[in-house]
C-alpha cells in the first residue's frame, strides 16, 4: 500500500527537524566517558533532567545513598541524570526513586552487594494504578524486554550504581558471571488476574508502590498438567530446595506465580500464608543429599561436615515468615509457568509508596 502524498510530505518534514548525526555523536560521547552499560544512552541535558526533577518534591542535592567503603554518594539529581540516560520518561522518575529507596532498605546494598561475585540483580515489582498509567508490562513476557517502563526503570538503577557509585565490571564490580537479566528485572504485578491482595498491600502499602530485593537466581517451574495444588507446590518445593545456589545456613526465596498457578492454588483454598507454610515445610534437602554436593555442614557457610544424621531434612527457608518468601503474581494466563527467584541475601519484607507525580 502506498502512502498518500500529503502524509509522506508531513513525515519527511518532521524527520528533517531531527538531527540523527548530532544524536549519534552525542551517544558516542557518552560511550567514551565510560558511562554506558553497553547500550546507547540518551544524552542528558539540563532541560531534560529538570523535567525529571519537576515530577518529585525532593531537593536535587538530597543524598539518597552512600557507600562507606567508597565514600561515594547518590543524590536525587544524579538519580535523575541516570534515569534520563537510561531512557526513562520523566513520569517514571517517582518509580525510580521509590525503587532506589526500597533497595536501600536491603542490608546488602549498603555493604558489598553491588560488588559481589554473585552478580545479583534487583527484582523490582510495581503495584497500583500507575502500572497502567505508565504502561508497565504485567502480563506476557514480564521478565523480558519489549516495554519501555519495565526496561528503563531497571536500567536506571544499574546506571546509578555504575555511575554514581563508580562500580564498574572487572574493577570494583566482581561478578563471576552475573545473573542473566541483571538490571532489567522490573515487573508490574498482574493484580487484575491475581486471586490475592497486591504484594505491596500485603506489606501494608496500598496503591502505587514498589517492592524490591536482590536476586541470585531466576529459574522457572513449568507445570501445566496437574490440578493438584500439592503436586504443584511439590514441584516448587523441589526447585526452592535444590542445593545449587545455597551457600549459607538458610536461604530466602520468592515465587512470581503466573495467573494460572496462582488461581489454581487459591481455588484449592490456599492463601499466600498457606503457600508459604507449605513451601517452608517441604523445601530443602536431606543431609545425605547435601553431603553429596559437599554442603551438609551449615555452621557458617555450607561445606562438608559429616556431623548430622544422613536422613535429617534441612529446610531451605529459615521460617514461614513473609520476608523469607516473597509471593507475587505476573505473566500471561496462557500456561502454567512461574518463576522461582532466590534472594541474594535477606529481604526487608517491605514496600515503598510511590508519591503521585507532581507535574507529569
Amino acid at each position, binding site marked *: 500500500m502506498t502512502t498518500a502524498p500529503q502524509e509522506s510530505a508531513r513525515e519527511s518534514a518532521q524527520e528533517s527537524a531531527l538531527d540523527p548525526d*548530532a544524536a549519534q555523536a*552525542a551517544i558516542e*560521547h*557518552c560511550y567514551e*566517558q565510560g*558511562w554506558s552499560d553497553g547500550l546507547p544512552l540518551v*544524552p*542528558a*541535558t*539540563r*532541560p531534560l*533532567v529538570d523535567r525529571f526533577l519537576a515530577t518529585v518534591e525532593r531537593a536535587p542535592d538530597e543524598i539518597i545513598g552512600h557507600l*562507606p*567503603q*567508597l565514600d*561515594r*554518594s547518590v*543524590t536525587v*539529581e*544524579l538519580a535523575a*541524570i*541516570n534515569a534520563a*540516560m537510561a531512557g526513562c520518561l520523566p513520569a517514571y522518575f517517582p518509580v525510580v526513586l521509590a525503587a532506589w529507596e526500597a533497595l536501600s532498605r536491603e542490608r546488602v546494598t549498603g*555493604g*558489598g*552487594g553491588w*560488588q*559481589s*561475585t554473585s552478580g545479583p540483580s534487583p527484582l523490582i515489582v510495581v503495584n497500583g494504578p500507575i502500572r497502567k498509567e505508565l504502561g508497565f508490562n504485567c502480563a506476557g513476557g514480564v521478565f523480558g524486554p519489549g516495554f519501555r517502563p519495565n526496561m528503563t526503570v531497571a536500567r536506571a538503577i544499574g*546506571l546509578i550504581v555504575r*555511575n*554514581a557509585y*563508580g562500580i564498574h565490571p*572487572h*574493577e*570494583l*564490580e*566482581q*561478578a563471576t558471571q552475573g545473573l542473566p537479566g541483571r538490571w532489567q528485572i522490573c515487573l508490574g504485578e498482574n493484580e487484575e488476574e491475581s486471586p490475592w491482595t497486591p504484594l505491596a498491600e500485603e506489606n501494608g502499602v496500598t496503591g502505587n508502590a514498589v517492592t524490591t530485593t536482590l536476586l541470585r537466581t531466576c529459574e522457572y517451574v513449568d507445570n501445566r498438567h496437574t490440578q493438584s495444588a500439592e503436586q504443584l507446590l511439590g514441584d516448587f518445593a523441589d526447585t526452592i530446595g535444590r542445593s545449587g545456589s545455597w551457600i549459607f545456613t538458610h536461604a530466602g526465596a520468592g515465587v512470581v506465580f503466573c495467573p494460572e498457578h496462582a488461581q489454581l492454588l487459591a481455588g484449592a483454598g490456599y492463601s499466600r500464608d498457606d503457600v508459604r507454610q507449605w513451601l517452608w515445610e517441604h523445601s530443602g534437602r536431606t543431609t545425605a543429599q547435601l553431603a553429596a554436593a559437599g554442603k551438609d555442614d551449615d555452621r*557458617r*557457610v555450607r*561445606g562438608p561436615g559429616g556431623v548430622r544424621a544422613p536422613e535429617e531434612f534441612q529446610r531451605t527457608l529459615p521460617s514461614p515468615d513473609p520476608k523469607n518468601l516473597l509471593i507475587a503474581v505476573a505473566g500471561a494466563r496462557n500456561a502454567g509457568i512461574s518463576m522461582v527467584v532466590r534472594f541474594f541475601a535477606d529481604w526487608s519484607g517491605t514496600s515503598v509508596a510511590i508519591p503521585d507525580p507532581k507535574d507529569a
Partner: protein
Amino acid sequence: MPNAILDPTGRVKEETGKPSLEGLAPRRTDLKGARIGLLDNTKHNALLFLQEVGRLLVDEEGAAEVSIVETKRSFSVPVDEEIVNRYKGSCDVVVTGVGDCGSCSAAAVADGINFERAGLPAAVVLTDAFLVTGRTMATMQGAPDYEWVVTQHPMAILEEDQVKARAKQLLPEIVAMLTGSTGGGR
C-alpha cells in the same frame, strides 16, 4: 550553543580531596619481640590462615605474641579510626585478609592503607583473582602503588592442613612486607 551533556557520576569535585599516602609506616628491622595483630575479614579459612601465620611469626620469627585478634563486622567496609586505634594500642604490626570475594578484597586493601596511615605496618593478603579490584581501591585511597601479599586462588576450598601449608609458604613474604627487609612495602 547546544545544551551540554550532564555528567552522571557527580565525581569531578568529590575525589580531589583524598590525601595521597606519602609512605608506609616506619618498619622494624625484624619481628623479634613484636606484638602481632590479626584482623579476620570473615571469609572462609581466613581466620585459620591468620592464626597459623601468627603462630609461625611467634615460633619462627621471635615475635612476642599474638596480642589482638578481631573479626570484621562487615567484610565490605574498611576499618574505621576506632578499630585502627584499638590495634595501634595493642600491637606493633597487623596481618589481615584473606581477600577472596568482590567487596572484601577491595576493603582489605583499604584496611592495609588505613593501618599504614596510622603508623602501623600491615600485610594484606589477597588471592590472585582480585588484583584489579584491589588496585582500583588502592588508587581511590590515594595509594596507587600500594602492595600486598598475593596468594593463589581459590582459598575457600582448602582443607585445614592445606591452609596451614599456605601460611608457611607465604611467611617470608609477610615478614618482608612487615619489616621492609627484602623488597616489602612499596
